[in-house]
């Protein structure tokens, strides 16, 4: 009915201190069913959302880290992380969840979903979006 639009989800907030990270993920999962062009960006404290090794037992909240790992199954494979945000927080890509997707055109080869990019590259990605949802 409509043409395909470029949806960009911008995540700038840390997980658990507020619900934005989790409710953003809920939109992404529902949105995946709409066959649009989906991109996720993690910048500023948003990079903390995809840090590995989380254990929420002590705060008695549901741990939603596993849900990020499932994004590849929803065909969400364009995940951009700002390099400057990682550096400011003393993080590297090794601190992040290992997010993968399977390329059916290459015999289901596993490929990295996460791309670490500069602020300037992210500015281009943001500029290119039709619909930007901010969390």
């Amino acid at each position, binding site marked *: 009915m409509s043409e395909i639009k470029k949806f960009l989800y*911008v995540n*700038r907030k840390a997980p658990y201190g507020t619900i934005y990270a989790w409710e953003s993920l809920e939109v992404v999962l529902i949105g995946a069913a709409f066959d649009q062009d989906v991109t996720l960006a993690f*910048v*500023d404290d948003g990079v903390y959302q995809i840090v590995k090794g989380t254990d929420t037992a002590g705060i008695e909240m549901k741990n939603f880290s596993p849900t990020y790992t499932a994004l590849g199954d929803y065909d969400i494979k364009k995940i951009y992380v*700002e390099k*400057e945000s990682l550096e400011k927080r003393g993080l590297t890509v090794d601190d992040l969840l290992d997010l993968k997707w399977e390329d059916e055109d290459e015999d289901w080869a596993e490929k990295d979903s996460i791309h670490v990019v500069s*602020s300037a590259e*992210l*500015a*281009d990605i*943001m*500029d290119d*979006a*039709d*619909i*930007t949802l*901010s*969390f």
Partner: protein
Amino acid sequence: MLHTVNKSPFEKDSLAACLRMSKDGCAILLIEDAVYAATDGTAVSDQIKEAMKTKSVYALKPDVDARGMSGKVIDGIELIDYAGFVSLVADQNSTQSWL
């Protein structure tokens, strides 16, 4: 492209993020507590003036007035009302809110 910012630049990192990840030629609209970033003589005025060399900066007049800042706005920042906000959104091909 239109970027909106609604947080004070002294309290939160939203304006800094917007300035870092927006492109030359874009429009930036300061609303709500972000209108403090439109005032002169502050610790962030120079950042806004630098941005104004390559980007168009607007501030929402009702929010400027509510905060008693109407006499302090940096020269060259255009004050607009809600109708002007609507026009900006319509004129630019997309909108990103820095929350």
